[in-house]
């Protein structure tokens, strides 16, 4: 059994805590959160103890740390945990500032830092990647990633989120890199505020189409909206020289209702906690493998920096109307 500590008892922290507590190889020993009530409630639920960061990092029996605290603390906590010799599972993004993220290169490159780009662990997207790798559609040529949220977050969140590209599209930038198997060298983004004028007033956009191109000429389009009007739309189409592989949305149920006016399907699984339930569980599995020395992080610091660089480039392109070369 590996003893681990959790930093952050918010929405995503609670998901990871529940999965860690249920994992046969892990013991969730500590919960750390500045909001004492949140830490206490989660500790009671999972059988962990509330403590502070220094105590958790100073406990030599703690092998790993899950960082699910607020985004502005990710990089600092990751550095301290790695320095204390812990394996780290850090929520995305690594940071909101590219220069600051890059400044940690010496300490974090090649470290046992596993960055939680959860979509890489989604069974459907993993199956899609496996089909691509097995040559099912020949040589990959282009990608279409659809990533639309059901409803926009409150403007108070928008203001601290880092904006659409760094907060939301960053997942898609990571998926694009992962699936293309090649770094984009050109980014163009066209973006609008169509969903909620308050998002525009806060200096952000809510609707975007981003185009990536790699050195070999592979193309990728990412479609983003903060509000779909029909649920959490998460799809990927990968076009190859011999066909297409498509991962479609998961529905709440397989029930279809047919009548004189046509057919109605059930709605999409609601938002990320439902849609990516399996992915979060599989992330914890991967973290346990890392702790056991059976795996190195499949996605880490360098991936976090690369995705952030694409997000900054997309933001710059949307502002200037120009292509950004990387």
């Amino acid at each position, binding site marked *: 059994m590996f003893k681990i500590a959790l930093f952050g008892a918010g929405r995503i922290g609670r998901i990871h805590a529940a999965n860690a507590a249920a994992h046969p190889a892990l013991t969730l020993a500590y919960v750390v959160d500045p909001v004492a009530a949140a830490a206490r409630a989660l500790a009671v639920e999972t059988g962990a103890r509330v403590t502070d960061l220094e105590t958790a990092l100073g406990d030599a029996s703690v092998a790993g740390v899950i960082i699910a605290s607020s985004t502005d603390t990710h990089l600092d906590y990751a550095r301290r945990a790695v320095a204390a010799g812990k394996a780290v599972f850090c929520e995305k993004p690594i940071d909101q500032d590219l220069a600051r993220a890059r400044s940690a290169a010496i300490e974090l490159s090649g470290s046992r830092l596993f960055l939680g780009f959860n979509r890489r662990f989604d069974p459907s997207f993993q199956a899609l990647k496996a089909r691509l790798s097995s040559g099912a*559609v*020949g*040589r990959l*040529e*282009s990608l*279409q990633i*659809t990533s*639309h949220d059901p409803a926009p977050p409150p403007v108070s969140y928008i203001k601290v989120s880092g904006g659409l590209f760094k907060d939301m599209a960053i997942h898609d930038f990571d998926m694009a890199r992962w699936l293309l198997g090649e770094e984009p060298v*050109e980014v*163009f983004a*066209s*973006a*609008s*505020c*169509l*969903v909620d004028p308050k998002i525009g007033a806060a200096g952000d956009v809510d*609707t*975007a*189409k981003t*185009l990536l*191109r790699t050195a070999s*000429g*592979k*193309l*990728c*389009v990412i*479609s983003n*909206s903060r*509000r*779909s*009007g*029909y649920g959490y*739309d998460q799809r990927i189409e990968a*076009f*190859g*020289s*011999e*066909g*297409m592989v498509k991962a479609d949305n998961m529905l709440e149920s397989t029930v279809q209702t047919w009548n004189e006016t046509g057919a109605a399907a059930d709605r999409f699984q609601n938002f990320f906690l439902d849609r990516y339930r399996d992915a979060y569980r599989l992330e914890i599995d991967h973290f346990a493998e890392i702790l056991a020395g059976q795996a190195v992080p499949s996605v880490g610091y360098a991936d976090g920096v690369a995705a952030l660089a694409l997000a900054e480039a997309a933001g710059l392109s949307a502002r200037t*109307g*120009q*292509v950004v070369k990387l």
Partner: protein
Amino acid sequence: MAASRFKIAQLGAGRMGTVHARGAAANPRLRLAYLVDPRPEAAAPLAKEVGAKLADLDTVLADPEVVGVIVASSTDVHLDNTLACLRAGKAVFCEKPLDLDLARLQAAKAEITASAAPLLVAFNRRFDPHYLALKARIGAGAIGRLESLNIINHDPAPPAHAFIVPSGGLFKDFTIHDLDLACWLLEETPVELFAAASCLVDPVIGEKGDVDTARVVLKTASGQLCMISNTRRSGCGYDQRIEAFGSQGVAMADNPRLDTVQVWGEAGAVSSPIPRDFIGRYAQAYRAELDHFADVLAGAPSQIGFAESVRALTLAEAAAESVRSGRSVRL
């Protein structure tokens, strides 16, 4: 009944000419009287099949009973043929594109817009029942306010190498359909365009100065966004889909399947393929556009003509320019 049919002629007996001649012969409101082709011996079997007489253009233009002409000749003579027919007072159904050169098109503007005889430019996809239903749903407010579009237009296999250069290139030959669909569905003209393109399918296409894989992003003045995806070779048939994202939902027009059979086994399920050929996929659209031509001959206004052709070609040229310069183009 035959007397009430509109007497028409057709120029061109190639691939599209065959589709339209058969469609016209089957249309209860049209009577295809003449077929004109520079190679009469090649056109003879089609003329016989559809019951038309082989003739030359002058005969067609001089026949006062001919009220309309289908221009399905080679692209480089579309505009000249169209102008000749309009001058003779014939309504024209012209296969797309009207021309590949924007300057030439603009030079013909005064004459075409002043012509009493109407011009229908056959952007067939506007007549596809699936896309018409999609537009009707958007118009009915089914998805609230339209915010963005994804248009997938992938050919099953690249055209013959000899076709690449005369085609005008991917954007003018192929993407032009999507650019027209985008304007039709957005109901707004794009003001900004960016295109990225590659040659991934066939190096010969690249050697001839063209591309075979592209993504185009359009933005309108109100901020509506549209993405167009093109390839000359899908590897999975003729992939023709549109997704329209609105404030209250998404409307999707999917590919039809050749049949509805699914086979399930230990490895999963296998569906039948999507159509491979554009003539089969858009068979209903080709019939519907001829029906619309009959409406135009009966006095209805043409739904798509010169202005739409100029707009689509302008966008296609902008896409090519964006690829050349690596910059977005403001319109």
